[in-house]
């Protein structure tokens, strides 16, 4: 592709260069286009779904009163033709306005600010646990191939990916709450406890920022069980993937070379095997993290965790168009961001990739 002549040399390198910064800039510009595309698809899908948002949100008697229905439609712009509705939505979106939720009657942006960090908090913990444990277990598994540790790890990781999430969640809740009494219960804090002042929306972080260690430790005790349950599936996937990936790398000639130099096995594994294996693992971890966000609906219901999953569920049931749009946009943004992060990490791990666009 020819460079556009209006670009000055500096901006030209920013857009077409092979370094990391031009790469990120290009990807962010693509991301904007992608997100716009996603709004279009999400909007079209919500229009295709049979169901009347007015009926879903107004009571029986209000729905039979044409004046109230007309007022409701006018208030939310539902009286406009579909394409006008979409253009209005995108126009508002560009100004940072995500609309008013039909079910909560609050701005969607405000709702998301409240619900998204709750999910982000358990998802971050889950993906951290899954990634660290998964890489360690997968590596041990590969190194003890076919021997006892490998067999045990394989049974557990297979169980992890095979168990339905809601079943894991219910079982874990039953065992750790009812039977053992280790978990404090549902929700994010003790009933009636004052949440810390909102900065990030993640209670643990906010409480720490506030210097309130009691609330922070309480928040940790509440989030641990849902986060670990959420981690189970990703842990299984990452463990299995790491095992396969390490085994594949172990068969490479350059690993034999490293061993022929008399390096201790831990150096061979850490420097020569895990580095290339991480390339593959990062890809799967990025996808796993993004799907954790989307897949937390069931877990959040079991643990009454007021997160994005619950919000998405309520919006969908209430045919709350702005709510559904908001959720899809935020999930899409996370997916796009994770992909970008994965690609950036790729380049950091494998310096040879910096030459390619």
């Amino acid at each position, binding site marked *: 592709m020819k460079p556009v002549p209006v670009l000055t040399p500096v901006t030209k390198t920013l857009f077409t260069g092979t370094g990391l910064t031009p790469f990120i800039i290009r990807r962010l510009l693509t991301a904007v286009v992608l997100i716009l595309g996603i709004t279009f698809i999400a909007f079209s899908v919500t229009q295709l779904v049979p169901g009347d948002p007015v009926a879903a949100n107004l009571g029986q008697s209000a729905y039979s009163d044409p004046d109230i229905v007309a007022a409701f439609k006018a208030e939310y712009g539902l009286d406009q033709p579909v394409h006008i509705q979409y253009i209005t939505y995108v126009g508002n979106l560009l100004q940072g306005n995500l609309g008013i939720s039909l079910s909560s009657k609050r701005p969607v942006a405000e709702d998301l600010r409240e619900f998204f960090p709750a999910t982000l908090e358990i998802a971050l913990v889950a993906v951290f646990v899954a990634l660290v444990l998964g890489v360690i277990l997968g590596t041990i598994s590969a190194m003890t*191939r076919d021997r006892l540790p490998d067999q045990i790890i394989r049974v557990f990781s297979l169980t992890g990916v095979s168990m339905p999430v809601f079943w894991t969640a219910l079982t874990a809740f039953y065992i750790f709450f009812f039977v053992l009494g280790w978990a404090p219960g549902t929700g994010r804090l003790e009933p009636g406890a004052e949440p810390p002042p909102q900065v990030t929306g993640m209670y643990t972080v906010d409480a720490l920022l506030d210097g309130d260690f009691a609330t922070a430790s309480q928040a940790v005790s509440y989030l641990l069980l849902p986060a670990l349950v959420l981690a189970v599936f990703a842990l299984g996937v990452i463990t299995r993937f790491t095992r396969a990936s390490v085994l594949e790398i172990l068969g*490479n*000639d*350059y690993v*034999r*070379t*490293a*061993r*022929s*130099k*008399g*390096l*201790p*096995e831990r*150096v061979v594994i850490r*420097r*020569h095997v895990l*580095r*290339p294996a991480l390339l593959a693992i990062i890809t799967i971890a990025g996808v796993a993290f993004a799907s954790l966000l989307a897949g937390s609906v069931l877990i959040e219901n079991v643990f009454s965790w007021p997160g994005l999953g619950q919000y998405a569920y309520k919006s969908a049931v209430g045919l709350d168009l702005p709510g559904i749009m908001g959720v899809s946009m935020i999930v899409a943004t996370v997916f796009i961001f994770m992909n970008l992060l994965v690609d950036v990490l790729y380049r950091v*791990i*494998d*310096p*040879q990739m910096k030459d390619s666009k």
Partner: protein
Amino acid sequence: MTLLNVSDLTVTLATSTGDADAVRNLSFSLDGGEILGIAGESGSGKTMTALSIMGLLPYKGKASGSINFDGKEVLGSSKKKYQHMRGKEISMIFQDPMTSLHPMLTVQTQLTEHMRYHDKMSKSAARESALKLLDTVKIPDPASALRAHPSQFSGGMRQRIAIAMALACEPKLLIADEPTTALDVTVQAGILRLLHQIRDERNLSIMIITHDLGVLSSLTDKILIMYAGSEVESGPARELLSNPRHPYSQGLIAALPGASREGKFLTSIDGMPPELGNFPSGCAFHPRCGFAEDRCSVPPIDATVVSKGHRIYCPVNPFAHDRVEQS
């Protein structure tokens, strides 16, 4: 002085159809400063012999017999002992320099990591020594080569880097497994000359594995020819190449391009080498051998000494007669 003495080495590998012996009762020795060439078709057990010395047999591979290196028994050593020996006492270069160097690590890391581990060198001392090594193997501009990744070099240059890596801790024995097979013909001669020169300068013993007898003729002091995991003939290089006595060695040498007369097709040995786990009994070559008799398929096949240091494993010994006539 004998540096390496291998006796009765048998290597067993796990295959999909069960265990199979890839190397069978192999014995040979190598003196300090000597170059030994091991030749044979692919699948004859050359590489497995080398890997068993290094303690690097593939998954589920087992070796038995005796490997004595520098006065010590090596076979059955602990992992720790092997680790201290590899790279430091015995080092190895591999067939394909495109895959045997790590694609994501710089030349400096790959060239210095074992020096730092074995010889407890500081980073700067190891770097100094790496620069000298790259100079020894004739890499232009060693300083910038250290910062580069292997992908920035050609195959021949990569093999020179691999040789530098193998020499880093000044080992007593260098095992070169088909060091020129993956390279262009024009580059091959340079690598072989380099190996020869290094032997002369460092009084290093080299074990070179190849399927190309042409490679051995100019380089080696001794040659061992293998077929189906066993020795068929061994002896001083010049003697063996000019006067091969085993029908298989005869066939190999006759198949060399230089050996055929102009205007004639290259000669070849009929049939295919046997597959691992399916080696014929007795002399494994007998189904392809023009001189085979009934006794050839009956083990054991004993060695026949032809002259000093030159022996063959052939019960028929079909060329003994004209040897007598010639001399």
